[in-house]
């Protein structure tokens, strides 16, 4: 324990820098993924075949082992941020797509009919009635996706990607030598703390963006 704290003291700046990169790559990837997944979800939620296809494809992507996907991206995109972000965006899609579709479908059709009957255009019904009502479910999907990506981002160290993965990998590959265990533990704990911070942030976002009329 003593050596761990010593290690932390010495490497504090570096660890913080890596943690910041880890958070940033997560935010960017989930952000891009959310835009794509939301758009797809809004387009296919009421078309059974397309909907099933979108969920199936994004789900299939998730089954590709991250090592393999990252490795396959190297020839085309090299190392570092680019293959990392591409892979993370692909992995982020399923939870958000599925929750968007589910959230949109769960909105009471009578409410949508009321909107249409009052003279709202289809676009207005979708954007001003359906999406706000589906939002809590969609936001949960984004939150789950973020949790997933924080974990997978650690593996990006395999392609020299950003974040705490580098520290974990370094430690694990040199186990037995000085500070190796400290590195591995520090990196892992760092990822866990990041995950908790993100989760807390999502709780705040949910409170701020959900209408008071919807809170149970």
């Amino acid at each position: 324990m003593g050596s761990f704290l010593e290690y932390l003291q010495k490497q504090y700046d570096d660890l913080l820098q890596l943690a910041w990169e880890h958070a940033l790559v997560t935010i960017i990837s989930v952000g891009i993924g959310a835009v794509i997944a939301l758009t797809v979800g809004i387009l296919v939620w009421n078309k059974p075949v397309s909907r099933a296809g979108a969920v199936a494809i994004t789900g299939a992507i998730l089954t590709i082992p991250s090592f393999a996907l990252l490795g396959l991206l190297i020839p085309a995109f090299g190392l570092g941020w680019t293959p990392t972000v591409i892979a993370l965006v692909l992995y982020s899609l399923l939870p958000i797509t599925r929750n968007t579709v589910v959230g949109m479908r769960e909105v009471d059709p009578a409410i949508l009919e009321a909107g249409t009957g009052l003279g709202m255009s289809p676009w207005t019904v979708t954007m001003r009635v359906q999406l706000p009502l589906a939002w809590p479910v969609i936001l949960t999907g984004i939150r789950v996706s973020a949790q997933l990506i924080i974990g997978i981002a650690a593996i990006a160290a395999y392609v020299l990607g950003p974040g705490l993965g580098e520290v974990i990998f370094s430690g694990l590959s040199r186990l037995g030598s000085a500070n190796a265990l400290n590195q591995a533990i520090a990196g892992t704990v760092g990822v866990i703390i990041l995950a908790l911070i993100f989760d807390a942030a999502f709780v705040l976002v949910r409170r701020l963006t959900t209408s008071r009329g919807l809170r149970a």
Partner: protein
Amino acid sequence: MPDTSPAGSAHGASIELIDLTKQYEGAAEPAVDKVSMSIPPGELVVFVGPSGCGKTTTMKMINRIIEPTSGQILIDGQDAMSLDPVELRRGIGYVIQQIGLFPHMTIGENVAVVPRLLGWDKKRTAARVDELLDIVSLDPSSFRDRYPRQLSGGQQQRVGVARALAADPPVMLMDEPFGATDPITRERLQNEFLRLQNEIRKTIIFVTHDFEEALKMGDRIAVLREQSHIAQFATPDQILADPADEYVSSFVGEGAALKRLGLVSVGTAPLQSWGEDASGLPSIPSDVTLREALGVLVGAGSDRVVVRGPDGPIGVLTMATVTSMLEGAGDGDC
């Protein structure tokens, strides 16, 4: 659509349905088969019939929530099919069975939807919202900023009606609007709405499966069979006195005479003058129906009853008068 004044004095538009039909793909028979009817401005027409007869489908074709397969809909002479459906609907009030208030908006925002869609400025909209909440007996300052989930079913239904009335449309479509409440609340809502309609006189199509409600609410009733074929389209009294066929009779049931008496207020009946010899008789207020008067007569075992006005007795109603009110319309298989 006619321009409306903020005070809400615009009257209804006429509605003409010509061979209106809805055929769903793959179905053997049309859901609605060539419905034709003519509704003058300001009339409240009730569509009544069993589930599945197409009454709601017919109503929903008027604002093109369901697109007609063929036929014409003329609103104030204008072909509804030639208008942009979104524009059309902003000129038609729409109240559905499930109410459908927007849970994420306040009551005020819900009621303000159509005015905002029409581009009314905030001041005018806010004033109109308060006016409407008042009309449906909800105190604006208490309810304006609440959310639907905080309201009871009856209150939500009132908001639904207010929301439909917001832009003062000349036409209203109402699908079992008071259905989702208990009988006591429903009766109160019906009475309040009748009082309101008396002032605003919009053209209203009101769908219900409840024949009693139809009798109470309608200026005219369209009794519909399957595929919305019209069995009879007439005033409540005409239907009760002279049902067109057995199908209509089955709605009327056995109590036609009593129901007809329920349509007439004591105040409109000829009364004998009140004298000293009437002091021992039972009495009733003048705003009850002949049916209730009959109940008092039979219950008290009397053939006369005193009718009270706001300042005292105004006359005496006799049993003979009550029964004679039934003559004059149809043979009465009462």
